[in-house]
């Protein structure tokens, strides 16, 4: 039924047979199913943590999976688990935005015994993660302002610069020559954004929510972008700007 597999290990230099190992048929069957289910089963997209291979994944995901396979307790095992299943819904509720204040959430405080420096009040939230300014949205051919784009548009750098300058958004210190409030600007040209920048942005974002008035009439404020939620990934553009 399953392919006959002979796994032989040989040491090259010694050039002799070190041993032969037959994988147990049960293990084999299990792995095969795990591997193929994602591809062949119509429910391939619904697997919780998926089959182990056929896809490169986050290393951390693998550790859990490894355990499942090794201990034959996984969802793909022919034997029922000896423990009750755990469900995400049973975890403490994390729905809705979280707000924190006080304690470490107060950010960087300079405190003196005599109270000469006032405490900075800071509330942290996961309501919106930082984003750069929003570029203009000119109307493509065949679109009009009714589609939510800009009818009056000039395809120049100056137009985009002015459009974005009217927004209250995080300054891109890596690619803007001058940032208005760049106290913690990078001097080493690194690409990442420091925690301070993010904190500052979140702070500004909240201010804007409460009382700022947007100056230019064509600037439509965006609600927060749902795609910016989740873990930050160490993914970079291969833009080829370093290969000149």
């Amino acid at each position: 039924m399953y392919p006959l597999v002979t796994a032989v290990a040989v040491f090259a230099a010694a050039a002799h047979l070190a041993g032969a190992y037959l994988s147990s048929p049960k293990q084999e069957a299990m792995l095969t199913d795990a591997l193929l289910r994602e591809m062949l089963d119509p429910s391939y997209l619904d697997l919780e943590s998926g089959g182990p291979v056929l896809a490169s994944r986050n290393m951390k995901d693998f550790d859990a999976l490894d355990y499942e396979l090794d201990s034959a307790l996984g969802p793909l095992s022919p034997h029922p688990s000896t423990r009750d299943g755990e469900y995400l819904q049973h975890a403490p509720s994390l729905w809705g935005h979280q707000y924190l204040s006080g304690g470490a959430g107060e950010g960087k405080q300079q405190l003196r015994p005599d109270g000469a420096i006032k405490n900075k009040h800071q509330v942290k939230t996961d309501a919106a993660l930082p984003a750069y300014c929003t570029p203009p949205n000119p109307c493509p051919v065949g679109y009009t302002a009714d589609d939510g784009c800009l009818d009056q548009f000039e395809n120049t750098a100056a137009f985009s610069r002015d459009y974005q300058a009217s927004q209250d958004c995080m300054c891109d210190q890596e690619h803007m020559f001058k940032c208005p409030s760049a106290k913690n600007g990078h001097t080493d040209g690194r690409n990442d954004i420091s925690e301070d920048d993010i904190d500052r942005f979140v702070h500004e974002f909240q201010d804007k929510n409460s009382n700022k008035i947007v100056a230019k009439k064509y600037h439509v404020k965006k609600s927060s972008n749902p795609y910016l939620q989740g873990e930050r990934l160490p993914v970079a553009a291969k833009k080829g700007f370093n290969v000149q």
Partner: protein
Amino acid sequence: AVLLLAALVVVQAGASPRASPRRRRDVPDPNAPHVFTNSFLVKLNGDLGNDVAHQVAQRNGFENLGPVLGSHNEFHFVHPSLAPARTKRSVPHTRKLKVDPLVKHAAQQPGFLRVKRGYKPFKVESLVGPLRPSQDPTDPYFSFQWYLKNTGQNGGKPKLDLNVEAAWAQGITGKNVTTAIMDDGVDYMHPDLKFNYNARASYDFSSNDPFPYPRYTDDWFNSHGTRCAGEVSAARDNDVCGVGVAYDSKVAGIRMLDQPYMTDLIEANSMGHEPNLIDIYSASWGPTDDGKTVDGPRNATMRAIVRGVNEGRNGLGNIYVWASGDGGEDDDCNCDGYAASMWTVSINSAINDGQNAHYDESCSSTLASTFSNGAKDPNTGVATTDLYGKCTTTHSGTSAAAPEAAGVFALALEANPQLTWRDIQHLTVLTSKRNSLYDAKNRFHWTMNGVGLEFNHLFGFGVLDAGAIVALAKQWRTVPARYHCEGGAVHTSLEIPSDRSVLMKITTDACAGTDTKVRYLEHVQAVISLNSTRRGDVELFLTSPMGTRSMILSKRANDDDHRDGFTKWPFMTTHTWGEDPHGTWLLEASFNSQMPQHGFIREWTLMLHGTRDPPYVGLPVTDPHSKLAIVKKAHEERKA
């Protein structure tokens, strides 16, 4: 490790005599008044079929090369004793054909203006007849676009290009195909792009709106997507910049790189955006190319890719084109789970004289190559559209190479809209050319695999040839069903010694006797778990039963990981394409290190992906020297 490398060289040297000598055919001078070839277009009296055509050819002293464009009554004959190019019509030969009762019409073909190039060319002309002499586009930057038409400008090698004119001359320019540029936005108001822009298929995930116009920065950093878009579908003959590879195709913008950090949601939504409106997704991003990152698509993104491949394009599967990376020789794109995926076509780059670019990141999962910058002359970048209606001549990196491939695939999809994602990969393997690509450092040689396909660790199966892929796409028959077989596994930990290599074997029948039997390989994955005191010093080689040796992991000098190692990481190779997986596979692991290191391979699973039935049986062979002919013959001999 040094000894190992030496052994590799010996193996390759031993294999190279099998390569037939470089064929160079003298080409008729296009300026000569009349040139006639030894090719004849023969129309039979009725749909008599190829077998009758063979008889007609034989009894008149001709050779039948097969039907023209799948026709049942038109065939391509050659006369072996005639010179391939002559200045006079061969009246007696034509007459001989014309008097044959089964022949309705016979015409000797006038000289080709286009030139066959490269190694074992797939003859475009033998499929579509002589090509019309085409006019160059009049766009002002066309002369800088050496990757489209290399005339030797800026020290390049003449005819080392994508051979797009041969595709255009067949009337194929990318009509009704949409390529999405997943990048930092597209200047869709650019006069060279605005009429080819597909607004319905576009989106801005960085700002969550339908208009992916790029964000301004003082350094114009966000010009990248616009530059990539122009390579694919900049308009022709409009006096603006240059011309795209598929200049009548549509381009969509997916703005998804321009936020302070990446999320799984952005990636997944980008790669799954409008999969029935978008045919091809072109990506020039991935894990950081620092030579020490091992990362790939996360859960949602992986689901999006699988869904795109299985269900996109109304079931034919989306084409994902991936830049292999700019990490140079210190990185290996098999550590980039996007480029190394079977579901992406990973593209590397060559420069204008055929060398690999110095920033090229190589790996065994690379399928083919296109062109980018890197020559000493700074004017040898990629000429294309730029932000705010401008033009540039300095687009660069493997990320400039990926959109060229996307453009070539757009041409193939116009030629045959029924091509699946796997058909595109098969066509790429069969029509890419060795041409004059070579490793500037003389490390990686061209080697022939077990069915006669030449591959190179740097360039995959060679540089894309638009004319050839279009010609073959027109007569393509969808490849048979694909199966996935776990060929075997070793679950025992084996030490990797410091001073020599450890070998592991899996002998497999490739799931014979089961319903997942694989006899003709497409992709092979070695799924490996290992730990070592220095991950970057581990090298891995996989050798197929037919003797093809793939370097599935090269030394990565900057990778000093000693903790994570690899956990069930799928190292992929395309080098064994078309081979028979049955037999003994060999995995070699060793350290390439000055310092003593140690480590363990904890697990190795061999995954075989391919077809049970021979993939090219329905395809007519019109050129006995084509890769198709060679692979097909190898497959037929195996059956016998």
